[in-house]
């Protein structure tokens, strides 16, 4: 989707603001969100592409204003609700519980000891390469042009790189296709390539001197360029 998350090349954000001696987590709740995100993925509630798309579906103004872990909280809350793991009613009730008792332990509302969780798959977001027997259509050195597409759903073809000419730098193998995997349409694994774009192709005469961008793109984003 042509969302505000697709930031490459946008202007007006100002300088990159750095924080001196930044801690890994700014508060414990950030680590709690991190642990919940991994738990939902590793226990098969959602896949990594569904997770990314859940964040992309935030309202644009909220997306830009939110901190990183606020985005994650928004994304996983949406997914745990959509997947039926929690209901709106029980979530609302628990929020009221902690609003009223900010110092209660997290186990405060529980009436019994929590059950042992089901098996966790630590490779849930890493296991993306497939042996489908598909033969890559392109080889290193081939010229390609990216398709000018604007899918309503999840895609990993950034807006700034659509309709642009590039050169195949490397063939990565056959990888799960996020555009379908994010929408319950299966893995539809296909060849993935590293493609080199000259900055002048992307930004025209406003490009900085002597620059290139390498982007990893799936085969169905590409057409041969002659």
């Amino acid at each position: 989707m042509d969302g505000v998350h697709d930031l490459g090349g946008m202007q007006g954000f100002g300088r990159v603001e750095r924080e001196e001696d930044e801690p890994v987590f700014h508060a414990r709740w950030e680590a709690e969100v991190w642990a919940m995100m991994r738990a939902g993925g590793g226990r098969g509630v959602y896949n990594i592409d569904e997770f990314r798309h859940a964040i992309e579906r935030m309202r644009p103004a909220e997306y830009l204003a939110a901190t990183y872990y606020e985005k994650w909280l928004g994304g996983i809350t949406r997914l745990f609700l959509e997947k039926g793991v929690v209901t709106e009613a029980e979530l609302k009730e628990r929020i009221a519980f902690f609003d009223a008792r900010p110092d209660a332990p997290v186990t405060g509302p529980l009436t019994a000891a929590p059950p042992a969780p089901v098996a966790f798959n630590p490779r849930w977001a890493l296991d993306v390469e497939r042996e489908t027997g598909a033969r890559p259509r392109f080889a290193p050195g081939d010229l390609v042009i990216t398709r000018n597409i604007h899918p309503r759903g999840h895609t990993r073809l950034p807006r700034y790189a659509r309709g642009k000419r590039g050169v195949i730098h490397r063939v990565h193998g056959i990888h799960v296709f996020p555009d379908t995997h994010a929408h319950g349409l299966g893995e539809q694994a296909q060849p993935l390539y590293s493609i080199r774009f000259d900055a002048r192709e992307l930004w025209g005469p406003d490009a900085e001197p002597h620059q290139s961008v390498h982007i990893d793109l799936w085969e169905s984003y590409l057409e041969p360029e002659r």
Partner: protein
Amino acid sequence: MGKNHPNVDPYIVSRVRALESLLLEKGILAPDAVDRVVQRYEADTGPMVGARAVARAWTDPGYRRLLLEDTSTALAELGLDYKMLLVTENTPEVHNLIVCTLCSCYPWPVLGLPPTWYKMPAYRARAVSEPRAILKEFGVDIPAEREIRVWDSSAELRYMVLPERPQGTEGLGEAELVPLITRDALIGVAHVQPPAPAR
């Protein structure tokens, strides 16, 4: 845990704890999961694995080739099982820079969790279109004749820069080099600096 940024907005904290209590109750979240996350990322990782790989590559040409051409085998030699990393080498002709414009993909297992600036709109928007301007803000001046090669991490592969070994470190061994190699240099927004001269 950050003391200078006590980000404890009660509105957020209630929502985090509400979801957390439900996920504990339903067997999605293990009771010790949060403590393990804090331990792993605050105490155990950071940019250490990446720095060790670079220090070894600087001192061992065979390892350098392995790190560039068969990265997962090179990382396995350091005890890390990670197959998604590609390493891209700075040379006199090319300076490399890593970004993820669509979200904030980052090689956690070798660099730890990313700094906030890496995840914020300014860096994600500008790294692909004005990397020289960003590098200047970071205090890194890349001459116009040297190519800047930006890697937008749009799939599940992750990237790390193999920076140039600074002059004046010729006498140092692997263990002495490791602390010089910063996270920022492995992202590509800094040069590795030689050790400050002894006074």
